[in-house]
């Protein structure tokens, strides 16, 4: 394998890593701010892709409108679930939140399998992002370039919003000490609902980005969920920057394993997870609590 070919694999790893980054970022936000291990994140990813497909199939609404509408719809569904169900387990052990969201995941996935089967639906690329460029060492499809750019913008935008803005400061304060923040006249439950909506909207956005590349399939969320969980564990549960950096890094690692030992490519991330858990249980970027 020549050096230029490896460079191509590096770029592909970054592309896949940006998907992991977006999905794990949503998980990290929800865990960091709500202390919920959201096992339904994969279902929201699948919903994002399916809503984009449905908007086109039934209403003729194209990619760019879906890029806004689908994550919004996912956020609304998520916020309704947060208000009606997830809210009730905040004061219980983490395990209850995990079980509840795992149940939600199974129900949502089961409904889509029932309605649409498992054979998958097609979704076309937006016209201006078809084709690609020959970079010399590899052929880069335009759409993949767009995926990297879009997810990096959204990832670092989210990081900035939470770590550097006043709203982000309120959010972080509300999770540290909700009673005190409420005393300042801030609507904490509303803030928490919005944070959950934002976290699942990131998954929905990743779903829309994935729709043209992969098959829009009810099972797509389940396939990626376990990997994303491993990414979050390696990065440190709740760490925003950790989720982004680890997502990209593990995407690259997985890409290389597809060259040197493809049979292990779905395991390499978990091998890293085990090593990290043994050496630094809070994750690479996590803080001991």
């Amino acid at each position, binding site marked *: 394998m020549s050096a230029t070919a490896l460079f191509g694999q590096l770029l592909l790893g970054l*592309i896949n890593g940006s998907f992991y980054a977006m999905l794990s970022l949503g998980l990290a936000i929800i865990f960091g701010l709500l202390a919920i291990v959201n096992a339904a994140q994969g279902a929201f990813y699948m919903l994002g892709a399916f809503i984009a497909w449905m908007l086109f199939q039934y209403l003729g609404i194209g990619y760019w409108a879906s890029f806004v509408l689908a994550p919004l719809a996912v956020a609304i569904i998520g916020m309704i679930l947060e208000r009606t169900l997830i809210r009730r387990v905040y004061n219980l052990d983490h395990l209850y939140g995990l079980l509840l969201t795992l149940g939600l995941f199974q129900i949502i996935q089961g409904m889509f399998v029932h309605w649409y089967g498992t*054979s998958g639906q*097609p979704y076309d690329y937006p016209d201006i992002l078809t084709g690609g460029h020959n970079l010399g060492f590899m052929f880069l499809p335009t759409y993949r370039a767009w995926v990297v750019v879009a997810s990096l913008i959204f990832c670092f935008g989210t990081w900035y919003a939470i770590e550097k803005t006043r709203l982000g400061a309120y959010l972080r304060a509300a999770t540290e000490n909700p009673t005190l923040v409420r005393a300042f006249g801030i609507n904490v439950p509303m803030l928490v609902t919005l944070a959950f909506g934002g976290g699942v909207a990131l998954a929905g956005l990743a779903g829309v980005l994935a729709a043209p590349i992969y098959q829009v399939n009810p099972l*797509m969320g389940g396939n990626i969920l376990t990997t994303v969980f491993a990414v979050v564990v390696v990065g440190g549960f709740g760490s925003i920057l950790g989720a982004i950096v680890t997502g990209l890094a593990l995407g690259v690692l997985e890409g290389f394993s597809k*060259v040197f030992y*493809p*049979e292990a490519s779905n395991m390499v991330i978990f091998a890293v997870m085990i090593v990290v858990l043994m050496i630094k249980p809070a994750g690479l970027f996590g803080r001991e609590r």
Partner: protein
Amino acid sequence: MRFSWSLTAGAALAAVVVLCGAPGAQAQYSDNKIKLGILDDFSGPYCTDNCMSPVNAVQIAVDEFGGKINGVQIEVIHGDHQDKPDVGVALAERWYDTEQVDAILDVVYSGVALAVQEVARQRNKAVLYSMAGSDALTGKACAPFSAQWTYDTYQLPNLGEAVPMLGKTWFILSADYAYGKALVAGVTRSVTNAGGTIVGTVFHPFGTADMSSFMLQAQASKAQVIALGDAGPDMTNAIKAANEFGLIASGVKVVPLSMDLSAIAGAGGLQATQGMIMALPWYRDANPPKSEAWAAEFEKRQGSMAPYLMAGLYSAVRTYLLAAQATGTDDPKKIFEWMRGHVVDDAFTGHGVLRADGRMVHDVYLVQVKKPSESTGPRDLANLLAVIPGDKAFRPLDQGGCPTVAAAGK
């Protein structure tokens, strides 16, 4: 006067038929009915398109006989084996032993089919496979009254005949489980025997969403042909990646081994699949006009495009019913003797032959998916490149290791 004479003659003829035919039939068909049991996945991952396509395919054949043979009712039931061999065996035993099922049909998923094969063998009962693909069913695990109609894991990757047309250097991307490995072994054997070379083989884990890395490796190998030995969403994602990374545009021939034209819509339509090469056990021009008419009838009932697996199932059931009609019995021995002695000429094939090992030998069609601009409608998807004759497509009778064939040869 002339009119009333023919009417009388007709009535007399009818009386003769009733007198001779019906009592004979009552004596020959056990339980005075012909009962067929479709044993498939009706709830899980192998159920596609609302699970009812096998029921519709079988019903078309039954309806062609007016629901009756020689005055005896044809009854069709279906059961869900849940992709579990133990569930499949329990259902098969109950159907054969206490519910008077004469033939079990289809049996998607070879794990269940191989178990059901044993049940049928022990009881000397009939079983007709379309979706079950393991070539062991007509090899070491063959049974006297079992027929595998549509395809098998020997035939799917047996593409030596296509090497001169497609190219000499092949790259194989396959799934890392038994089915994928069987396909890789088949492609390697047939392509090498035909003078081609395998320049690279990659096994990916089940459920790999992103295939782009493998497409880059295939590109770097400079192979002229890429064979895909995976199935379901894995295969669809590989096809999409082959298209996205410009392999097809650069003239590389992509051959998804488990693909059917009916799956093109789900794989991204002609835009994503144009130029692909497939070796199909059946397509809608396989034996015109019967094949086209059958496809139209199936699509009217099912509401989606006719897959080759269902055309094969229909043909197997139709042939079985023809045999039951001609022999006036549901005795598996007589029925299989009749089926082996008569050429299959229906919507599935014009000249199929059921061999002693249970393999139904028929032509295979090498087709290329059209460009979107060439297609005139949603069913106009491919051009025929070549017809691979049945004896070149399927494993020779003496190489399968079927014990009853070996015993007969001695």
